[in-house]
């Protein structure tokens, strides 16, 4: 053992003698102040979940939501301290979630859910990244990114959305929801798609702050080529999916990927690095069963692992996975209130 390690060991041993008894006595030691862990700053938000088996606990409820319930849901999220919401979709399967000239509207109890949530967000200070898709089958991301007809429809829709809703204070920016699967690096399809979306977005809403959330995080080769591709990608924020919920990455492993991304983003000096952290697990098999709340112990470890490297942690997602006990806009799995309570208890301990 060298001198440096000897001194460290002595110090740590002494410290452990002084604090050890308290630490072992308290089974809720995780609830102590942990300033190294960043809180959740935002969430995805959806009017329906694209893949019905995964949205088992909320897809049938959301169409019945009244205007008051949509507002209550936004307020409820705001009360957790979250500041950002990312709207997954403004359209799905040939129908829209707002009154549009482009496609027929979903038959929801609330006549304009998009207007309702943006109005509520205006009141409570939430910033929305508003989706600019899915103007086709959401599962065919490649087509949505490359098809010229979809492109025209999407850009016409962006004009319509900007005209109707960009006056809202809460209209913070756009979200380009076709998920780019990163394999080694950012491919040309993604760069072309994102850059085109961003060009239109900046023309329509010059002050917009715009976001993408790719998956395939663990397969990125964080080399100079990746830095070059990052430099070419014209977007303000990249919130990489941690892929813990989809079981592609184990808890405790994600941090090393974000550490590498932190270095790559620092070199590229362009998009800001955020996280899209998955707070769900699958009820049974991955991609074949319902999304349900994960245990907060797991989620806290996810937060701790990536906190040193990301500017903000967003989660997928509050809707259906977290609910304030007694919420007038309850939607989701019964265990969602426990996750809410566990998270809020931790958050209070940070004050």
């Amino acid at each position: 053992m060298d001198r440096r390690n000897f001194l460290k060991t002595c110090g740590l041993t002494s410290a452990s003698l002084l604090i050890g008894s308290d630490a072992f006595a308290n089974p809720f030691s995780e609830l102590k102040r942990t300033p190294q862990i960043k809180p959740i700053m935002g969430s995805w938000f959806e009017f329906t979940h694209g893949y019905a088996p995964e949205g088992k606990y909320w897809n049938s409820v959301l169409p019945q939501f009244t205007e008051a319930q949509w507002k209550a849901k936004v307020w409820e999220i705001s009360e957790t301290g979250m500041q950002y919401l990312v709207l997954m979709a403004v359209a799905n399967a040939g129908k829209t979630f707002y009154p549009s000239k482009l496609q027929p509207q979903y038959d929801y109890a609330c006549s304009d859910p998009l207007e309702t949530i943006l109005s509520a967000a205006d009141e409570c200070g939430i910033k929305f990244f508003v989706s600019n898709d899915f103007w086709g089958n959401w599962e065919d991301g490649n087509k949505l990114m490359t098809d010229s007809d979809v492109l025209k429809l999407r850009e016409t829709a962006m004009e319509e959305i900007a005209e109707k809703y960009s006056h809202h204070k809460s209209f913070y920016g756009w979200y380009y929801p076709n998920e780019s699967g990163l394999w080694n690096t950012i491919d040309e399809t993604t760069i072309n798609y994102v850059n085109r979306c961003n060009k239109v977005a900046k023309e329509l809403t010059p002050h917009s702050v715009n976001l993408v959330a790719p998956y395939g995080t663990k397969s990125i080769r964080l080399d100079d080529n990746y830095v070059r591709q990052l430099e070419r990608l014209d977007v303000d924020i990249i919130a990489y999916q941690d892929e813990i919920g989809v079981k592609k990455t184990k808890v405790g492993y994600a941090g090393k990927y974000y550490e590498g991304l932190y270095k790559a983003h620092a070199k590229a000096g362009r998009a800001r690095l955020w996280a899209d952290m998955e707070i769900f697990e699958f009820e049974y098999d991955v991609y074949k069963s319902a999304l349900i709340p994960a245990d907060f112990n797991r989620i806290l470890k996810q937060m701790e692992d990536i906190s040193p490297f990301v500017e903000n942690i967003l989660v997928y997602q509050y809707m259906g996975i977290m609910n304030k006990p007694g919420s007038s806009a309850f939607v989701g799995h019964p265990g969602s209130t426990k996750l809410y309570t566990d998270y809020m208890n931790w958050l209070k301990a940070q004050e």
Partner: protein
Amino acid sequence: MKTNRKIFLLLFLFITVCSFSQNKWTTLRISDTFSPKNDISAIQFDKAGNMWAGTWCGLYKMIDGKWESAGNQNAYIQAFYIDNQNAKWVGAWGGGLSKSDDGASWTTIKDIQPAGAINIVTADREGTVWFGDWNCGVLSLKNSKWTSYKPEQISLGDNTVTSIACDSKNNKWFGTYHGITVYNELTGSKLYNRENSKLPANDVYSLCADSKNNIWIGTTNGLAWFTGKSWTIYKKENAGLPSNLILSIAEDQKGFIWVGTDKGVSLFNGKKWTTYTVENSPLVDNRVQTIKVHQNKIFIGTGKGISIVECN
């Protein structure tokens, strides 16, 4: 009282320093820079005694003290295993399963498609090789015959198999995200989860069957020791583990248990836990992803290289 405390403190420091000085630590890295080549997923030894390392950027073999690429360059290796026939198995993220008999030429296994990605490969004492897949359950290879096992057949928690251990009673233990399953061809199978046992979390990441046929279970919320009848749970709060996130487990030749976490590695001698971290030891990285015991040495594979502990 104060004098006693001082004596205790000095004694504790003396014991701590002595315990570190008894072990010799060495560090191995495949690349000198921050690189996925140092992100170690598996360590194995072939029949000639050569060390192999599966990494997040290829497979490497140590020859005459130097690392050489052993194929699968640029592959995201999640599992690597050398079976008792000296065949090498690689499970790669997005790359399927491949095998090499000579360690040079590799064949992609097509018999078991559509396996998603292999998380773990190991073998039982009879030589059957067992594979745990990301979303296709368990597979086995015995006498050139592949068998696929689904949750309903052997009570698997789900189709994502993170870890496999085989004990000397011919039991196979499968870790999933919905608990741990014990399977025996003669006696059947049983699933243990939080609802029917003391398993501290359903997310099982690592397993080790020790020489006494107990099973050590690493979860996202602590370590469980299961004798087949009773459960003992070791956590940060009651055992001083550096973290409750258990990534790897191995038994050394003395019967001591090494437990890798995301915040260091702990050694349990049956009575006492000792923890090694980058802060108090030469451990190269706190993220301890795999542990291999070979010839009285402990090979600790981390996110930033390999630490070797030579035990006295």
